[in-house]
């Protein structure tokens, strides 16, 4: 029994790490008012950048840096489209996912079929993700910048009235989200399965989007959510003889639907940022 709990916890932490990292980034973007459905694409590009840089330089840490940088960069065109040009955030996000998956698949061809020479340990990422969750929670809850970021997602007019540029805040949050998705990708190609393959993300980016909602856009709750999703994923193989794996794999999404339905039933604020998904137009009344 103890052995069961221990192995499940270890696997939950490992599988939960990429979705936690990317989910934290998505929470920041969404708290600033921007839904970015491009997580899967940004993660894929990050994974490739990490692998390519680590393999050619021999240093996995350079790979880490490359993933963060490239993740942030690929989020930029999305930010321009959805924030400055006020394109539909959902459509622009889907486009980013397709762009990221396609681009990484194409550029990644020469790196396929070879293992990474110097991989990183999974545990390092696990600890980093947990520490980041706490730091990001503290920053969001207890600093002025965090307050501004949250306000940009709740009531951007107020932020504007304070003389702070709403666009700049949202750009920052979206680009940070991209960097975090890139980091999640680096975990996949440097530690989790130290090699590159087209489609390495296999839907983890979508679980990260679901995680942001499930965690009610709260960085600390995201840790619990990531652990829960990770444990369910692991158990879908442990319990395969007893429970249908399809059912267990669908659980994260079922949970999201359940939580959304329950919070809709509850009176008062749903937990979602008020201005989520709404492009900000200066001087226009909502």
């Amino acid at each position, binding site marked *: 029994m103890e*052995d*069961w709990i221990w*192995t499940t916890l270890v*696997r939950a932490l*490992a*599988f939960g790490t990429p979705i936690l990292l990317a989910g934290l980034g998505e929470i920041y973007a969404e708290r600033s008012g921007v839904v970015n459905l491009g997580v899967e694409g940004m993660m894929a590009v990050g994974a490739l950048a990490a692998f390519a840089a680590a393999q050619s330089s021999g240093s996995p840490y350079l790979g880490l840096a490359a993933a963060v940088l490239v993740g942030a960069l690929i989020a930029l065109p999305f930010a321009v489209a959805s924030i400055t040009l006020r394109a539909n955030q959902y459509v622009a996000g889907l486009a980013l996912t397709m762009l990221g998956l396609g681009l990484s*698949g194409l550029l*990644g*061809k020469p790196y*396929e*079929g*070879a*293992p990474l020479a110097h991989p990183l340990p999974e545990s390092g990422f696990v600890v980093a993700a947990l520490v980041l969750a706490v730091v990001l929670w503290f920053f969001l809850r207890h600093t002025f910048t965090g307050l501004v970021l949250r306000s940009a997602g709740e009531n951007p007019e107020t932020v504007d009235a304070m003389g702070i540029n709403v666009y700049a805040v949202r750009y920052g949050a979206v680009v940070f989200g991209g960097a975090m998705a890139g980091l999640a990708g680096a975990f*996949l190609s440097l530690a*989790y*399965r*130290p*090699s590159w*393959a*087209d*489609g*390495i993300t*296999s*839907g*983890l980016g979508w679980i990260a989007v679901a995680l942001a909602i499930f965690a009610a856009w709260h960085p600390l709750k995201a840790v619990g959510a990531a652990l829960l999703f990770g444990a369910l*994923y*692991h158990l*879908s*193989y*442990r319990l*395969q*003889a007893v429970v249908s*794996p*399809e059912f267990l794999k669908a659980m994260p999404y079922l949970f999201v639907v359940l939580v959304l339905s329950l919070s809709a039933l509850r009176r008062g604020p749903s937990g979602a940022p008020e201005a989520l998904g709404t492009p900000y137009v200066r001087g226009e009344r909502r």
Partner: protein
Amino acid sequence: MRKGFWVTLVVLLGALGFAQGDKLKACWIYVGPVGDYGWSHAHDQGRIAAEKALPWLETQYVESVPEAQAEAYIDRLVKQGCEVIFATSFGYMDSVLAAARKHPDVIFAHATGFKRAPNVATYMADFYQLYYLNGLMAGALTKTGKVGYVGAFPIPELKRHISAFALGVRTVNPDAEVLVRWIYEWYNPAAAKEATEALIAEGADVFAFTEDTPTVIQVAAKKGLPSFSHYSPMKRFAPDQVVSGQLVHWEKIYIDFLAKVYAGVYTNKNLQDVDYWWLLPQGAVELGGAYGEPVNPKFAGALKAKKLNHPVFGEISVYDLVMKELALMSDVELAADPFQGPIKDRQGKLRVPAGLRLTKHELETMEWAAPGVKGPWPNEPK
């Protein structure tokens, strides 16, 4: 003026087509990305080798084609001038037959399927012999008596391979179990990884798999556990842990089939009974985790040290047994076969009577599980 332009264009295109009339255009549809380093990668290697070997051959491919959308992709390939289309996944079967009725002039060949038509042939380079040989080695190497197996889907092809593997394991180690986990996807590195981790947690210490990535090998190697490569030469992913595996040479089938199409032996009217079922004797498959190396030399010592009392060969080491069986199974007459009766299934029901072997049809539609297989087994006959 405008009309003149179009007429010129059509004439030019026609002339171009005529000039290339000697070429045969063959196209491939892959279920996964070419870079998966598994199933689709192996087919693409076969395509490249065929193109190199046959100067009159022109090829094209589409990758990652969802099984439900195969027909639309086939329509597009036909429009692009493909004369021979290879569909390389079991799930394409009904789409291929529908497309074949729609395009009676095009020649189709469907890998792993069992439905044919005048213009649809089927082909398969099957591994069940190799899985048995891998099983012998796995049975010798397991210390916990638990061998892990990660499978993509519970379809007859995998059930046949897992059962052949389990028969091999039990030949050497009569009490060993083969723990099976399904990931319900051909290509999903995260799923393969977590399935392997789950098997490790259950105590498995030797691994084999049928899915399209080297993930199982990488995960097992991290714990220092031996594994068997699948489809492509995956030894490079863990040179110290990959014992052996299954390698395919699809080009043997592709070159034979295309040469016969080119020579007019195969046409769009006479493929009803054309069914390639190529094994070791035809060179379509090879034992090993790297080309030209049936067993990783690092494991030769351990396999030579493990002795057993074999009903046919008497006292023999596992290494010698593997080599003997390999030679017999490579014989054109198939002097030995993994499914040589008497064989009971895991529920104790006699499946292969003494002195008999399974027919090709029985192999292709196999749903029962060999003794020692542990895990969910959808459609298991009672």
